[in-house]
């Protein structure tokens, strides 16, 4: 069975989700629940750290697509960081870097939420 876990924490005004394991049609509902909970709690500045994400299928990509519009309507964003080349290739194949900001490390993604000084 696929192993998938999410660790969550707040950093400044940004909510960070750390994904670990395999994100497929079996585990995608776990990520969906996490996004639902964030939106319910008015958390719209979200960074998804993919450092330990080993695998993603279209079911996982679909979760990001399902919530990005609502998040942006509320002046927030979903930014992604620390992707392995294998996971990035799947995002890239579908053109997702056009829609999502993907940074090399988490701090870079978190900083992008800070207002320009």
């Amino acid at each position, binding site marked *: *069975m696929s192993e998938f876990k999410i660790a969550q924490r707040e950093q400044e005004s940004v909510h960070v989700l750390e994904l670990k394991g395999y994100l497929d*049609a079996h585990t995608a509902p776990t990520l969906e629940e996490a996004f639902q909970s964030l939106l319910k709690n008015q958390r719209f500045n979200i960074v998804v750290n993919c450092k330990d994400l080993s695998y993603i299928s279209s079911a996982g990509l*679909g979760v990001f*697509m399902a919530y990005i519009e609502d998040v942006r309507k509320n002046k927030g964003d979903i930014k992604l960081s620390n992707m392995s080349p294998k996971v990035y290739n799947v995002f890239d*194949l579908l053109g997702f870097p056009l829609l999502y900001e993907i940074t090399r490390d988490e701090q870079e993604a978190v900083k992008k939420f800070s207002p320009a000084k």
Partner: protein
Amino acid sequence: MEARTINIESRTERLSAVRDFVSAAARECGFPDDEVSKIALAVDEACTNIIKHAYRYDPNKKITVTVKPKTRGLEIAIADTGTGFDPTRVQTPDMKEYLSHYRHGGLGVYLMKSLMDKVEYTIDPGRSNEVRLTKYLAH
């Protein structure tokens, strides 16, 4: 490598077993790691479509996955007896339009076509459907 088969119940929790089965066969055929990942993802997408659309999450149904070595490549045949899904009717999305309108779902067939060299279907709804995915070695 000899042809071999795995039968799974139509449950998403079995997807990892299918990926492991297909990855082992692809490695045996001599595919490098990045190609092995692409093949496993394409087969995952095919099985996910069957579980969701052809069988509509009925866990009592079966999916048969057969790996067959080909000349300089590998064919994976994924068979079901479902009624609900004809992948030949799925239009290839324009990804720019798809992303700009925040659409979701329907990417599985697009991914299969993008990841594999050949995608063929034999559809006889309710009796026997088969999708055959083929990948060739680069050299």
